[in-house]
């Protein structure tokens, strides 16, 4: 009986969401989001990516509850160093007798922080520069795009290295360096999108209503560029994580004893033949998370692409 009631309530909710005649702004927006979700959830690989990313977020939030051993202070150096995976230490211990599982779980916070900070810094910069260049055209476009080209001309890791060397090693500086080096592709994409829509009738129509360029860019052009930039950012996440890990590996990112995955691989490199798990476990973590973001990005592309008509 109760089961029936819930299922009918769910049916009503679905009908409310998929109706062709929404009666409020909120309902229209939710309905459109629900349709995107339906399309997204039909793609099993994209769902796998989403699950991996959600798992990463949950693990990062509940790191203290999931892994109780300290990720920084190790156990007895005489008896607990470099233990193989087993009952006490699921993924073994490293050369400081620290539990690798615990370090991985706590390291997820760093990974997530890097990813989020880079997104928050790089995406708005790229979007702004790209849309302004594309919409304004002329010398504004030329100046902004040449700056973008200059940044694009450098290999990303090398430029990040230079920035970190100038700013000093540390995870925050690594994030800033990665953000500074990762916005140019977003600017390029946003500009290309803008060029295709700047002369479309709906933009001209808003111009004929007397809208300022600022309003046209922020309210009419940016919303159409966001999907492709989000897709690109999600696909870049793997690269960002790898760059952060690479900086950590080179000793310029997170400093010991911070449990950063790249730094953990670097530490395990010295004894990779005899104690393979020390470097392998963080490597698997990086691989899984990068894969998760890639799959998610691929799925989002199918759903969010403005050119794919729903």
């Amino acid at each position, binding site marked *: 009986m109760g089961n029936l009631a819930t299922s009918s309530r769910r049916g009503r909710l679905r009908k409310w969401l998929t109706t062709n005649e929404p*009666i409020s*702004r909120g309902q229209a927006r939710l309905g*459109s989001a629900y349709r995107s979700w339906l399309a997204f959830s039909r793609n099993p690989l994209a769902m796998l990516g989403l699950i991996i990313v959600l798992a990463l977020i949950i693990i990062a939030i509940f790191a203290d509850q999931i892994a109780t051993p300290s990720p920084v202070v190790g156990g007895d150096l005489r008896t607990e160093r470099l233990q193989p995976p087993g009952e006490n230490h699921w993924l073994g211990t490293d050369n400081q007798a620290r539990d690798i599982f615990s370090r991985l779980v706590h390291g997820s916070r760093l990974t997530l922080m890097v990813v989020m900070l880079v997104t928050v810094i790089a995406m708005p910069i790229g979007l702004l520069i790209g849309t302004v260049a594309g919409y304004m055209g002329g010398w504004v476009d030329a100046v902004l795009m040449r700056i973008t080209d200059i940044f694009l001309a450098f290999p990303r890791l090398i430029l990040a290295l230079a920035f970190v060397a100038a700013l000093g090693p540390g995870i925050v500086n690594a994030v800033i360096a990665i953000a500074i080096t990762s916005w140019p592709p977003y600017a390029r994409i946003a500009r290309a999108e803008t060029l295709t829509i700047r002369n479309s009738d*709906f933009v001209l129509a808003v111009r004929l*209503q007397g*809208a300022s360029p600022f309003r046209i860019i922020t309210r009419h052009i940016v919303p159409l560029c966001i999907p492709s930039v989000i897709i690109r950012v999600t696909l870049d996440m793997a690269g960002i994580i790898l760059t952060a890990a690479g900086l950590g590996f080179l000793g310029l990112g997170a400093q010991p004893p911070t449990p950063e995955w790249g730094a953990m691989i670097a530490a395990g490199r010295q004894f990779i033949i005899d104690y393979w798990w020390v470097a392998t476990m963080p490597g698997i973590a990086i691989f899984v998370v990068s894969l998760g973001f890639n799959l998610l990005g691929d799925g989002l592309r199918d759903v969010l692409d403005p050119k794919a*008509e729903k």
Partner: protein
Amino acid sequence: MIDIKDLSIVFGSGRLRVEAVKGLDFHVEEGEAFGLVGESGSGKSTVLRAICGLAPIARGSISINGNKVTEPRGRQFYSTVQMVFQDPYGSLHPRQTIDRILSEPLSIHGQRDQDLRIVAALEEVGLGPAYRFRYPHQLSGGQRQRVAIARALILNPKIVLLDEPTSALDASVQAEILNLLERLRTERGLTYILVSHDLAVVTHLCRRLLVMRNGEMAELTDSSTLRRGQPASAYTRELIRATQGFARAKALSAVPRRICGKAADPLNSAEHMHSGGKNTRPRSP
């Protein structure tokens, strides 16, 4: 109301210089529907775009209510002059609800009572409140064009520029939109400039019309002359013949003339309305 004197519009420079409009003069009275006709490439749409500031004026002047237009056009101008575009599939933002599309002009001009005015505007173009929160992709072509008309009218402009407002629609919807435009004009005392390649559409809506050819005026005439098939210039006669030529067989003209419901005349015959699409525009030989 609208005075256009010696208007020339030039695109590009040097070898790429194209003079799209060459020294055009005309005057539109208040409350009048004025037609601009011509084959494609004759510069008729460019004139409209120049009036609202989307094309550069190389020479001559455009005056609205006796005031020369400023560059760039001010907010005042846009609340007087609005435009309806040809393609209803391209003129509505694909990611905005109808509500958002209609509220945008109101918030740009800082006007109040948005809710009431949006509902009223939809009502006026024959769309109920049920359409208010839909997205453009949930509407048909005719409904979209109604939304575009509602958007143009929501600021209560005096002048509406219509750039082939029906050529992307199929025949029965064309007639509906034309009747809607006609009703709105008489109710609100609007002034129209209608651009079309379709003589039937123009004669349906406009009394006076200007025939353009290669960016120049070919003839200033009126719709009754055109209906009688007695225009002064040879070019206009060619244009009419091109339109009729499309009917091919004489037998077809026996088809009941239902769509426009106008008196029997070659321009308004049913088969012509069916051939009114963009791809089948009449061309002079």
